[in-house]
C-alpha cells in the first residue's frame, strides 16, 4: 500500500518537475499552493493575525479587571452594544472575551501558528526532502484551518456574542442555550470551527509523521535528526492520538445540543423547566476534553522546546548537551502527557483514589522536564554565546519554562489543588509555562528562520529590544498574578467587588493590567520588524547563524524542491559546533568525516568507510526517480 502510494507520489512530483519551469499562476503560487514553504508562511501570517486579535482581547479584559472604574466608551466603535452607555463592559461579553482569548491563543496561535509553521517549514528542509509526503494534503490542512478561522472569526460578530463558557466549554453551560447567550449560535460556530480545525491538524500531523519517517535524505538516520525534527515528530504523534478524542467529545456535545441526546446532561432544571435528559454525565465531557487538553499543552510546548534546542546549540556554538537524554525526555513527557489528564479534575467529585494516582503520575513529569532544563543550562555553560534575537528568546524560554513549571508541582499536588484550583495561581502557572514559553519558542523560530523564509534579515537591535521588553513584561504580569492566586482570587470573575475576601490587591491587579498593556505594546516592535523586513530587510547571507543543519545548504531563497541538483547527503549529527581541532567552529551535517580528519574522534574515523554507501543511496529524492 505504502509502496504504491510512494510510487504515485514520486510520479506526481516527477510530473511537477517536468513542468517545473512553467510560471505558476498567482493562485497556484501563493494561495492554493502545495509547497511546504508557502504553506508554512500562510500558517505563520494567519497565526500572527490571530495573535493580534487574541492578545487584544486579553488587554480589554485586563482593563476591566485592573482598572474597573475606567470608561470604555472609546471602544464603542469596535464593540458597539457590548459597552454600556456608562462605558462599562458587558459581563456576558467579558466571559466571551476570556473564552475566545483562550481558544484563539491555544489552538489558532500556539498550535496552528507554531507547530503548523515550523513543522511545515523545517521538516522537509532539515531532513532533506523535496517537499512534504503529500503536498495536496498539506494544502488541505491549511485550508481547513482557514475555514475554521473564518467560522471562528464570524462568530465574533454575532448579536448574541461568541462562545462564552471558558475555552474548556464545559457542559451543561455550553450545551444549554438558555443558560447563557454565548451558548447559542456562538457555541454552534465554535464547535463547527473546532471540528474543521481538528481535521486540519490530523491532515497536517499525518504528513509530518510520514515525511520524517519516509523522506529523510541518505545518511539522515534517526540519531542524526536535529532535535527540532524530533520534537515535531513527537508533537504530531501526540496530536494524532489526542485530537480525535476532542473531535468525539465535540460531536457528542453537538448531539446533545441539537439531537436531544443525554451524553453530558442529567437532572437539569433551568428557566422554570425540568429537562427530560437523564443519565448523562458532565464529568464525561471533562475526561474526554482533558484527554486532548493535557497532551495539547505539550503539543504547544514541545515544538517550542525543539526550536530552543536548535537555537541554543547554534548560538552557544556548542553541541546540545545530552542529545539522547533530550530525545528520551521528550518521549517521556509525551508518554506521560496521556496519563495525567485528570489532574485538571481533582475537585470535580472524581473518586479520590483516582486523584492520588493522577497526582503521582503528574509529579513524575517534573523529572524529564528537569532534565531538559538542566541540559539547556549545561549547553550554555562554557559556550561562546551570540545574543541573536532568536537566542535571547530561547534563553528566555528556559527561564519561563522552569519558573512556570515549578508552580505546576504545587498544582499537581491534589491536596494543595483544593485551594488553588481555578484561581489566578493556575492562570499564572499555565501562562508562564505554556503560553509565554511557547510564544517565546515561536518568536525564537521566527527570528532564527526568517532569513530562510524570506531571504532577508530581521533587524537585530529591534529584535533585542522586543525581547527585553517582552521578557520583563511577562514576568511583571505573571509573578504578581501568582500572589493574587495565593490570596484565593477565582478566575473568570467579571469583577472582584462582590466578596470581602477579594476586597484587596486592587493595586496589584492594576499593576498586572498596566504591565500587560506595556507588554502588548512591545509586540508592535515585532510586527513592524517582521513586516518591514519581509520587503526591506537586509539581504540574508547563505548561512547567517553559521549553523549545521541542512536548510542552510539550500539556496538562500529555496525554490520548488528546495535544492537545485541533488539533495545533500548527511554524514554526521547536527551539533558539531566548536569541535576540537576543526578549522571553523561549526561543521555542517553534509560534510563527510573524510574531509575533516583533523577533528574526527576515533569512532568517527571508522564511519568514513560507510560514506561510500551513504553516497550511493538515493531512495527518497522524488525528482531523481524520474531521471
Amino acid at each position, binding site marked *: 500500500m505504502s509502496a504504491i502510494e510512494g510510487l504515485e507520489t514520486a510520479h506526481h512530483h516527477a510530473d511537477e518537475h517536468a513542468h517545473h519551469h512553467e510560471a505558476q499562476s498567482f493562485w497556484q503560487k501563493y494561495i492554493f499552493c502545495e509547497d511546504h514553504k508557502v504553506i508554512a508562511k500562510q500558517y505563520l501570517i494567519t497565526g500572527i493575525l490571530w495573535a493580534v486579535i487574541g492578545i487584544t482581547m486579553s488587554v480589554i479584559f485586563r482593563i476591566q479587571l485592573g482598572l474597573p472604574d475606567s470608561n470604555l466608551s472609546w471602544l464603542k466603535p469596535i464593540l458597539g452594544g457590548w459597552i454600556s452607555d456608562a462605558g462599562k463592559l458587558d459581563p456576558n461579553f467579558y466571559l466571551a472575551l476570556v473564552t475566545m482569548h483562550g481558544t484563539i491563543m491555544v489552538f489558532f496561535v500556539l498550535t496552528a501558528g507554531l507547530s503548523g509553521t515550523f513543522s511545515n517549514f523545517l521538516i522537509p528542509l532539515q531532513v532533506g526532502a523535496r517537499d512534504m509526503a503529500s503536498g495536496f494534503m498539506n494544502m488541505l490542512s491549511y485550508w481547513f484551518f482557514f475555514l475554521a478561522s473564518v467560522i471562528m472569526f464570524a462568530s465574533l460578530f454575532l448579536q448574541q456574542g461568541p462562545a462564552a463558557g471558558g475555552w474548556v466549554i464545559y457542559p451543561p453551560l455550553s450545551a444549554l442555550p438558555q443558560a447563557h447567550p454565548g451558548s447559542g449560535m456562538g457555541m454552534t460556530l465554535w464547535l463547527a470551527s473546532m471540528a474543521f480545525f481538528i481535521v486540519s491538524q490530523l491532515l497536517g500531523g499525518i504528513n509530518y509523521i510520514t515525511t520524517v519517517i519516509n523522506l529523510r535524505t541518505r545518511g539522515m538516520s534517526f540519531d542524526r535528526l536535529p532535535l527540532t525534527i524530533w520534537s515535531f515528530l513527537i508533537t504530531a504523534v501526540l496530536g494524532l492520538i489526542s485530537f480525535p478524542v476532542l473531535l468525539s467529545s465535540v460531536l457528542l456535545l453537538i448531539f446533545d445540543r441539537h439531537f436531544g441526546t443525554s451524553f453530558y446532561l442529567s*437532572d437539569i432544571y433551568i428557566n422554570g423547566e425540568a429537562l427530560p435528559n437523564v443519565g448523562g454525565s458532565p464529568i464525561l465531557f471533562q475526561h474526554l476534553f482533558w484527554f486532548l487538553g493535557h497532551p495539547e499543552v505539550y503539543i504547544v510546548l514541545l515544538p517550542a522546546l525543539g526550536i530552543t534546542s536548535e537555537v541554543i546549540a547554534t548560538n552557544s556554538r556548542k553541541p546540545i548537551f545530552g542529545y539522547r537524554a533530550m530525545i528520551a525526555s521528550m518521549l517521556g513527557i509525551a508518554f506521560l502527557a496521556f496519563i495525567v489528564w485528570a489532574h485538571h479534575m481533582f475537585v470535580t467529585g472524581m473518586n479520590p483514589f483516582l486523584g492520588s494516582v493522577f497526582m503521582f503520575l503528574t509529579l513524575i513529569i*517534573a523529572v524529564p522536564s528537569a532534565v531538559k532544563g538542566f541540559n539547556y543550562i549545561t549547553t550554555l*555553560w562554557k559556550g561562546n554565546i551570540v545574543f541573536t534575537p532568536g537566542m535571547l528568546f530561547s534563553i528566555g524560554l528556559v527561564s519561563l519554562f522552569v519558573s512556570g513549571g515549578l508552580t505546576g508541582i*504545587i498544582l499537581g499536588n491534589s491536596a*494543595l489543588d483544593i485551594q488553588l484550583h481555578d484561581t489566578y495561581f493556575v492562570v499564572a502557572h499555565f501562562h508562564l509555562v505554556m503560553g509565554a514559553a511557547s510564544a517565546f519558542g515561536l518568536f525564537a523560530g521566527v527570528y532564527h528562520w526568517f532569513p530562510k523564509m524570506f531571504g532577508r534579515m530581521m533587524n537585530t537591535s529591534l529584535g533585542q529590544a522586543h525581547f527585553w521588553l517582552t521578557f*520583563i513584561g511577562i514576568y511583571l504580569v505573571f509573578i504578581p498574578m501568582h500572589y493574587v492566586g495565593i490570596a484565593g482570587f477565582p478566575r473568570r470573575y467579571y469583577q472582584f467587588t462582590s466578596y470581602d475576601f477579594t476586597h484587596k*490587591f486592587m*493595586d*496589584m491587579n492594576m499593576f498586572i493590567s498596566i504591565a500587560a498593556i506595556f507588554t502588548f505594546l512591545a509586540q508592535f516592535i515585532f510586527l513592524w520588524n517582521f513586516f518591514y523586513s519581509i520587503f526591506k530587510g537586509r539581504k540574508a547571507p547563505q548561512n547567517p547563524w553559521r549553523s549545521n543543519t541542512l536548510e542552510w545548504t539550500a539556496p538562500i531563497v529555496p525554490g520548488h524542491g528546495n535544492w537545485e541538483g541533488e539533495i545533500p547527503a548527511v554524514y554526521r549529527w547536527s551539533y558539531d559546533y566548536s569541535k576540537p581541532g576543526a578549522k571553523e567552529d561549526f561543521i555542517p551535517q553534509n560534510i563527510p568525516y573524510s574531509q575533516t580528519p583533523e577533528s574526527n574522534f576515533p569512532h568517527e574515523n571508522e564511519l568514513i568507510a560507510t560514506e561510500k554507501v551513504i553516497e550511493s543511496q538515493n531512495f527518497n529524492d522524488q525528482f531523481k526517480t524520474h531521471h
Partner: protein
Amino acid sequence: MYIIIALVALVFIVLTGVVISRLQGVLKSINKTDSEEVETSGNKFNGAMFIVVLLIGAVAITWSYLHSREFFLPEASSVHGRRTDDLFWFSMGILTIPFIIVNFLVFFFSWKYQFKKGHRATFYPENHKLELIWTIIPAIVMALLVFTGWKAWSDITAEAPRDAEVIEITGKQFNWIARYGGVDNNKLGDYNYKLIDAQNEVGIDLSDENSFDDFTNPSEMHIPVGRPVLLKIRARDVLHSVFIPHMRVKMDAVPGMPTKFWFVPDKTTADMRAETGNPKFDYEIACTEVCGQGHFSMKMRLIVDDEATYKKWVSEQATFLSTYPEYLAKVPENLKAKAMKYVPAEAATPAADSSATSAGGAGASSSLR
C-alpha cells in the same frame, strides 16, 4: 503602587530609548558587505542586561513577596486547612531552591559565556553521570512531595465521620441554597429535580417523611464549630463549584452527580472577628466554576456558630412545610398525619381530624431509619 508603576514605566522608556539610540549605529552600518564573521551586534549590552535583570528581578520578587504577604492564604479556619497551608509553604520553600538556582545559572551563564572574539566554546556533548544526578535528585524530591501530598489528600477525602453535621448545598444560576435535615430527626429528605418549582427550589420530595422537618435558606449557611461538617453538594442547572476560601474547601457542584466535602471548622465567626480585628468579618461561599453572567457574584454568607448558638438557630428555623403549607397536598395519605406536625395550625385545619396521631409519629419516623 502608582510610584512603582511610574518606575516600571520609566525603566521601559529608558530601555526603549537606549535601544533606539543603539539602533542608529546599526542602521548606519547596514550597507556593509556581508562577511562570513558572526553577527554580534549588541552582544555586550545584552550580556550586561542579563545581570541587571537578574539583580533587579531578585530584589523586585523579594520586595513584592514581602509586600503582599499579608494577603496570602487568608487565615485558615479549618483543621485540614492549616495542614494544606503548611504543606503549601513547605512545597513552595523547596521549589524556591531550584527556581533560584536555575534562573541564576541561566542568567549568569548567559553573561559569563557571552561571545568573545577568538574564543572557542568547549565541546561537551554529554556526561552520563551528570544526567543521572539530575534525574535522580528531582525524582527523590518529587517522591517526598507526592508522599506528603498523598497523605493529606487521602485524609481530607476519607469518609466523613458518622457524627458529622450533614448540610446540603445546591448551586443554581446565580445563588446557593442550603438545606438542613431539620429540627427533629436531623435527616435530609429525598429530592428529585422534577419536583423543583418556584417555591420548592431544591426539589424536596415530600413523599419521604424525613423531608417534613427540612428547612432551606437561600442567603446564609450556619455551621457548628469544632465538629465535622459534611457538605452534600448538588447543582440544578449547570456546573458550579463550592469555594469557601477560609475553610480551604472547594468541590464542584455537578447536575446529576451529587458530590461531597467534609471539614472541621474550628473558629467561629466571632473568633475570626476578634482575631482579624474586623467587626464586619464574614466567611463567604463563592463559585469557582464558570456558570454564566452572574458567576462573579454567587455569594452566600457562612456563619460558624458555637454549638449552643447553632442548636438554637436550627430550632428557630421554619420548616419548608410550615412556610408553604400548600405542599401538604403532595404528602401521601398514610404520612399526612406525621406531616401535620410541621404545618401551622390554621393551615392544617382541613386535615385536623388525623392530627391526633401526629405526636407519636415523629418519634416513629426517626426510628425507621
